[in-house]
């Protein structure tokens, strides 16, 4: 099903025209309303008239998370506070949170994006949504909430955590669509089993999973354990929150709402634009935002884009699964390692649980990775040789995929902390001065 067919299935040429018109208007708008951008453009000797085509976007300056922090809290707002109806922010694990402001129109457009998303999952007014994303400064909870309400569904605003209650209500209220992080979905699947609840007594049929990178294998695991369709939802608070992109029934790429958020892929090192299908950092420019529009915001997410008509009928550009964040990338003995690579190795091996903890240390000037991973209960053996063989199996596979040795530590069941939000799976103890 398609929420807004005239836009989502629009002819590519027409869509480019709309984007061009919106981009020109946006550049004009920020030049006059966001002193930060006027100054940046002036430094580059740019005036709004220099931006005529979509290609001209390459002339515009980038925006980074640091710019948001430097302008904390409201420095990048393009409207007076009287027009701001909502404020969200990032969790701010590395200091001050980054703040974003929405006008009423921004909230409406965000809600429109989520309506497209949930409709693509096949959800309708007959569905019951359980929102297990956190409600608060984090955009996940309220974003999904507004979207689900907008398509007329019934919404259970549970927020994250309190797993037993989540599962009881899921059972008693007949939840059909679950919204949470993919790692929490897996955690819930285990908990449902532990609580002795029969899967057939649940009405759950689909899930909107996002807010952290996940792999195809993890999708398979969730779909199998919960017997549902697991769809990707992509977003970040700086751009709007969840619903910047969403998967359709084809489950082979995430459509981006590019009529509102113009995507580019750049080389994260040279910052040069990359072509269709090339892997690089995803960058967004707001085309319609009023409250806090950003030009060429660097998401740090690594992916590639594919244009053309999808078999679902949509023409909105499709993004590959996020490979990782350029921030999350670990450089181990000079080799790039993404936590998602480790995750897909683990999920490929049926003997292991999808939970892990990777610890990186530098011992005698050499980087060392230790992976703590749980064996599935039925695969624990009381013979040491068999346990050592399991260890070797995963170690060899990681060596193959990463080109690096990883010390494997087999852990007891449930000894690795399960997360109810974004999973913390990597600890880097190295000190770089």
């Amino acid at each position: 099903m398609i929420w807004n067919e005239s836009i989502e299935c629009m002819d590519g040429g027409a869509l480019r025209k709309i984007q061009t018109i919106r981009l020109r208007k946006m550049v004009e708008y920020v030049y006059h309303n966001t002193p930060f951008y006027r100054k940046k453009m002036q430094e580059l000797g740019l005036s709004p008239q220099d931006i005529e085509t979509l290609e001209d976007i390459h002339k515009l300056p980038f925006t980074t998370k640091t710019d948001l922090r430097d302008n904390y809290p409201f420095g990048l707002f393009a409207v007076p506070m009287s027009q701001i109806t909502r404020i969200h922010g990032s969790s701010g694990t590395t200091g001050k949170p980054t703040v974003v402001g929405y006008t009423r129109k921004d909230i409406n457009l965000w809600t429109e994006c989520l309506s497209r998303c949930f409709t693509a999952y096949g959800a309708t007014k007959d569905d019951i949504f359980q929102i297990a994303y956190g409600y608060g400064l984090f955009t996940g909870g309220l974003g999904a909430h507004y979207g689900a309400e907008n398509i007329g569904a019934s919404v259970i605003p549970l927020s994250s955590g309190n797993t037993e209650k989540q599962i009881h209500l899921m059972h008693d209220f007949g939840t059909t669509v679950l919204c949470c992080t993919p790692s929490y979905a897996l955690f819930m699947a285990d908990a449902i089993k532990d609580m002795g609840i029969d899967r057939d007594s649940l009405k759950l049929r689909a899930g909107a999973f996002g807010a952290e990178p996940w792999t195809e294998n993890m999708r398979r695991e969730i779909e199998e354990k919960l017997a549902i369709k697991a769809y990707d939802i992509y977003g970040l608070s700086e751009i709007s929150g969840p619903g910047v992109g969403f998967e359709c029934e084809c489950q082979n790429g995430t459509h981006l709402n590019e009529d509102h958020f113009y995507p580019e892929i750049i080389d994260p090192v040279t910052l040069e634009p990359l072509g269709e299908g090339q892997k690089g950092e995803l960058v967004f420019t707001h085309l319609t935002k009023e409250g806090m529009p950003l030009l060429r915001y660097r998401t740090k997410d690594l992916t590639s884009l594919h244009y053309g008509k999808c078999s679902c009928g949509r023409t909105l550009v499709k993004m590959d699964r996020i490979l990782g964040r350029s921030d999350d990338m670990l450089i181990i003995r000079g080799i790039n390692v993404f936590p998602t690579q480790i995750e897909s190795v683990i999920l490929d091996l049926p003997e292991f649980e999808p939970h892990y903890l990777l610890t990186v240390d530098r011992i005698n000037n050499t980087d060392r990775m230790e992976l703590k991973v749980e064996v599935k209960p039925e695969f624990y053996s009381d013979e040491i040789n068999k346990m050592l063989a399991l260890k070797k199996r995963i170690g060899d596979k990681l060596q193959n995929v990463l080109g690096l040795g990883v010390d494997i530590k087999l852990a007891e069941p449930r000894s690795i902390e399960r997360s109810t939000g974004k999973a913390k799976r990597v600890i880097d103890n190295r000190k770089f001065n």
Partner: protein
Amino acid sequence: MKMVAKQLSIFLENRQGRLMEVTRVLAEENINFSALCIAENNEFGILRGIVSDPQKACDVLKKKNFAASLTDVLGISCPNKPGMLSLILKKLADSGIFIEYMYSFALNHATITVIRPNDLKKCIEVLQRNEVELIDPESMYNL
């Protein structure tokens, strides 16, 4: 195979207090160990033991997230004298039976040995043919 006993096996990380935790959980359930041994390498251990109620022990431990399982083993009894074990092992070796692991303890005049052979059925046959005393599982659980 009524002479097959259920041994409690637990995979344990090398973490302080982990073994104590196992014994505490079983003590609370009033479960007794009649034999216990630990096989270890440098990062994990495997506890193997004969307990008064193997199924219950396994269930309560699993509920507490221990990697517990039950393994089929045999208990044999022979006189506590030099050469007796050697005699039995020779019979097994001659019949092509491998021993994955075993543990033994002497109780007055008898030696009790728990063995995990690669082929349980064949092992029982060989032992019975050679009149080695197999211990009834119930008696093992309540030694």
